[in-house]
């Protein structure tokens, strides 16, 4: 069986049935773009949740007589504590100045630094909830030299419940979009193959094997998916570029998106054409 002739036949149908191929390509590109766009939203949603989750921490304020090194060592020993960062009162003031920026003259009302030294305590991921925060905070409060602790508590759990609902909703929508995209791409491929049923009939009549008949269509499906996927990637990249004018820190792992759209397009193309061919090759 000659792959060369199969591919040549595929190229011929692409060049000679240009409008049909272009239409099918356009459908694939738009569908894949829709999928890539929604994936971009999903990726950024996850990124935001991850950042939010990492920000769940306990701030422990020290009294002036506290022995920083001993306290740090003791807090690090508590189960669930990942990292303890010491923030001196001077550092805290600098950070505050940076945050206030233009309005830092407010601070001039204080004669001396009003901010106490503190520990920023980062937790292991399974302790980043109301129960974990309460438990660890309670243990820290028992240590000598700790004045007060600050953490989200119940608010953290509420936030987690909300994000869980958003994630579920997002997954549902993503599943619907994936199914719609597959359906639209498959139907379009089916139509383009049906338009060439005479060609398939003749191939069968003159004794072409099933695999020989399938090669040009599979090749066409691959090329269409590849180009369609690339166009979808370009459109997503443009959308990303535009979105950076409106939002800060939009996350766009471009290599993954390039790989995903092209590979996804090719896989949909191959599976779509083989499904449509099955009717003819019974």
């Amino acid at each position, binding site marked *: *069986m*000659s792959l060369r*002739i199969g591919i040549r036949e595929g190229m*011929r149908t692409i060049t*000679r*049935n240009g409008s049909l191929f272009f239409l099918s390509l356009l459908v694939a590109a738009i569908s894949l773009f829709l999928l890539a766009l929604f994936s971009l939203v999903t990726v950024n949603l996850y990124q935001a949740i991850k950042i939010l989750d990492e920000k769940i921490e306990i701030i422990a304020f020290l009294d002036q007589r506290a022995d920083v090194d001993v306290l740090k060592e003791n807090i690090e020993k508590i189960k669930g504590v990942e990292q303890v960062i010491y923030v001196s009162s001077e550092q805290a003031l600098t950070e505050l100045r940076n945050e206030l920026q233009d309005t830092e003259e407010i601070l001039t009302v204080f004669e001396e630094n009003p901010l106490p030294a503190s520990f920023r305590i980062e937790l292991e991921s399974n302790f980043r909830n109301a129960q974990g925060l309460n438990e660890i905070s309670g243990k820290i409060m028992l240590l000598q030299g700790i004045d007060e602790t600050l953490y989200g508590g119940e608010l953290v759990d509420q936030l987690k419940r909300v994000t869980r609902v958003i994630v579920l909703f997002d997954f549902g929508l993503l599943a619907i979009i994936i199914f719609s995209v597959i359906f639209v791409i498959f139907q379009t491929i089916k139509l383009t193959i049906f338009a060439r049923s*005479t*060609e398939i*009939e*003749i*191939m*069968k*009549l*003159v*004794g*072409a*094997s*099933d695999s*020989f*008949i399938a090669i040009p269509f599979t090749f066409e499906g691959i090329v269409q998916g590849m180009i369609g996927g690339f166009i979808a990637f370009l459109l997503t990249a443009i959308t990303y570029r535009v979105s950076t004018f409106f939002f800060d820190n939009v996350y766009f792992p471009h290599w993954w998106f390039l790989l995903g759209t092209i590979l996804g397009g090719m896989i949909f193309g191959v599976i779509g054409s083989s499904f449509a061919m099955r009717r003819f090759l019974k």
Partner: protein
Amino acid sequence: MISFDKVSKVYQKDWVALQDITFNIDKGEFAFICGATGAGKTTLLKMIYKDEEPTHGTIKVLNQNLKDVKKKEIPIFRRKIGVVFQDFKLLQDRTLEENVAFSLEVTDTPAREVRKKLMEILTYLRLSHKKYAYPYQLSGGEQQKVAIARALVRDPYILLADEPTGNLDAKSSEEITSILEDINYKGTTVIMATHSISLVRKMKKRMLRIEDCRLVKDK
């Protein structure tokens, strides 16, 4: 070469296409399958090249019981049979030469042999001067000659022609039938389905007449 033994074809419960058909066609024979439109001629031809399966009975073609020909063996089996249709079934986006070569290329024939065979068949059918023409640039008779060339280029043992003159004028019909006669003279078994009794009478060949799904005459 071809034998039908009590062959019936039933599409649905009340739709019988052929019933109890029995005949033999020997190597090198020329036979007409006659009957009105819808009599079952096309179904009969389709069963010979295994595009349709009989509901009952046994069909043997080229010493093979068609029941034993497995699905994946069908392409190999079909390469021994040429088929020509009333509507030519040519690929409109290919030249005359490409349409004929297509038949060889899909069966993986080396390029050199394709060129040689093309030259032979196009010369034989006097089509060489139009080899770069597209089907829509050819007359009906010429298009049917291309279809014959496509069927013949693989040197089939059997040539099946389903109403090959149905869409042609008298002059072209005559030319096509004389080509089929010549092909038969060179040794290929030819079976031609037609509803034209006058053509059959003129040719003085064997005639199998189908009426109401049954074989009513064989002479």
